[in-house]
């Protein structure tokens, strides 16, 4: 695991703040107050600016997230192809709603705008992989396989 100092050392410029925060989150799963304070001191960026950026963009998390992120696409094509049903599957199988994490810390659910695989709607994305043309049964199978239920 990279230390916070190692990550910060790669970024010098105020304009790199979003890239820096993204990498910190990639490594630690979320942006802790401690880490944001270290960034403040190392790069001389006011904490309020760091916090401002961290709370503006939806991908930044201020609380620990699960090791795997399950994203349910809420794009237009998915909506007309009844993506609501997939939210129901995740609620049934994992007891998760938007931005919630399972108790064992393995999975976090995020409802996202559009992952851009509209022709295969409805879609979900687990970590970086997209699963398309889902039916209720297919979604259940994928989630069960992935979670080992």
């Amino acid at each position, binding site marked *: 695991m990279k230390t916070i100092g190692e990550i910060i050392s790669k970024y010098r410029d105020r304009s790199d703040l979003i890239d820096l925060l993204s990498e910190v989150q990639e490594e630690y799963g979320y942006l802790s107050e401690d880490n944001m304070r270290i960034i403040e001191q190392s790069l001389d960026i006011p904490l309020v600016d760091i916090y401002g950026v961290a709370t503006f963009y939806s991908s930044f998390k201020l609380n620990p997230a699960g090791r795997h992120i399950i994203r349910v696409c809420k794009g237009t094509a998915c909506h007309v192809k009844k993506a609501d049903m997939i939210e129901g599957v995740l609620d049934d199988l994992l007891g998760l709603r938007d931005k919630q994490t399972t108790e064992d810390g393995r999975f976090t659910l995020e409802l996202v705008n*559009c992952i*851009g695989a509209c022709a295969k709607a409805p879609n979900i994305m687990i970590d970086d992989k997209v699963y398309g043309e889902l039916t209720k049964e297919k979604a259940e199978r994928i989630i069960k396989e992935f979670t080992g239920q």
Partner: protein
Amino acid sequence: MKKLSEYVDTEKGAKELAGDRVTVGVATCGISAGAGETLKALQDANLGVLVDPVGCSGACYNEPIVTVKQGGVYSIYSHVTKDKAQKIVDAVKTGKICGELFTAHGLTEMDYYKKQQRIVMENCGLINPLSIEQYAACGGFKGLLEALLLEPKEVIDVMKDSRLRGRGGAGFSTGVKWSFVLGKTGKKYLICNADEGDPGAFMNRIMLESDPFKVLEGMMIAAYAIGADEAFIYMRLERPLSIRMMQKAISLLGEKHLLGENILGKEGYNLKIRVKKGAGAFVCGEETALMNSIMGQRGYPRPRPPFPAEKGLWDKPTIINNVDTMANVATIMKIGLDRYKKIGTEKSRGTKTVCLTGNVKRPGVIEVPFGISLKEIVYDIGGGTPDGTKFKAVQMGGPAGGCIPASLMDLPLDYEPLTAAGAIMGSGGVVVMTDRDCMVDVARYFMSFTQKESCGKCTPCREGTLRLLEILERLTDGSGKKEDIELARKLSIFIRDSSLCGLGQNAPNPILSTMKYFMDEYVQHAEQKTCAAGVCKNMLTYVITDKCVGCGNCARICPVAAISGKLKTKYAIDDEKCIKCGECMRNCAFKAIEKKSTP
């Protein structure tokens, strides 16, 4: 100036493309259908021919797609999942065609492509996206070389003369935009806006994943024309594959010394290109918000003027163009004005990439000349709506766009006619809707999207969209009143006229356009409390018909025990307990359960 062959082994690329070859489409759509496993299976099979990953040819409905080229004959195979890969292996080894998976001997044989005209997407799905040699062999960098023979101002004149309009949505002349920075000296920046955030639009993703060098070539031409030595491509975090492809493509260009200083031996032509990742904010597609985000700030928009060409990144003159525009720039310089001018309409020349999705038989990405009718797009290319449904409308232009009803399907695909009809061209997303889609629900869906994505800076958008959403939620959950319709309409106009940026100004469009064409549905929701499409749950009743044989399956499935009855007699649903999940209807083997929209 130096020759391209001093930098890129074009012959190697030409040889690869000319020989026998098996390709698998592994863009995001393909991967979601399992193309990654198919590619691996074919690579592991020792076929004795080149097995190449390619991007997406746009026919997403056929993924995973494998194309075999043997002895100069192409065979396109569809739906080749891993378990069917062996059939392709057998076909290649025996030199025969696998009839079961066979689709066509070339794209032009397929109905899907017959009305398309592919000049921007010409390489998509055909070349290995990360093979700079194959790109060059297909005429890549020809446009750049042509541009470098001209003075920067002459390149801008070519763009003006081509009448290329920005493909990001507004349709402003690219050449005119570039000319704004012409006389300015000192540092200038170029930005390629790849923050493709409209739900239902993924043409940029297809370009970035399938032909990244074409986008980069367009940027190289643009940077030369406007005199920028530093460029950014701002990309959407939710598209990880696009980001990886673009980063690799940029580093390959660097390795070949096609980025850096005195590029191609042209004295003083210097350029570096950097990928900047967004962090999940729809408003950052707006150019002033995007620039703030590149500078590491909150992605707030600001009033214009000053426009970016005056005061952009770090207050320096900045030109921002969309991915599709950049690819068009490279295309125009490559094929020349004479050929380009013959495509499209007088006012809007060239082609438009369009994402065709929703309830249509053949969803995917298409490239069509401006002026083609919407009917041709939905029926001739898309194959119409799924069996048993009736076509109702297309939604165009994403959350800023509007709906166009079936009765106006003769409208041409062009900026002005679409705007006049209450929709917009936008980025070019076309979502097909049928009699099973509720237009009030669609308006509610878009409003929930915009409301969440409102950055909160200006009051009309921040507060107004929330109130609009509340009204639409009332209308769709059955608690709406007749007055709500007029209230929503008035508020919509107010938000449109008083918001700071495009996000708020266009947010009411989905409501206003559905009211224009589907007012009857609003009235039904508000007054009769019915939803004819059967979408709004609170207005539905599930009933068991006389087809019921009394098997009792539905009673066992029902999650809330709302169904009761005696075996071998007709069962009944208690509407009070029913949560309208539809499980009983989906699982009834005798199709004895129907949903009705009367309360």
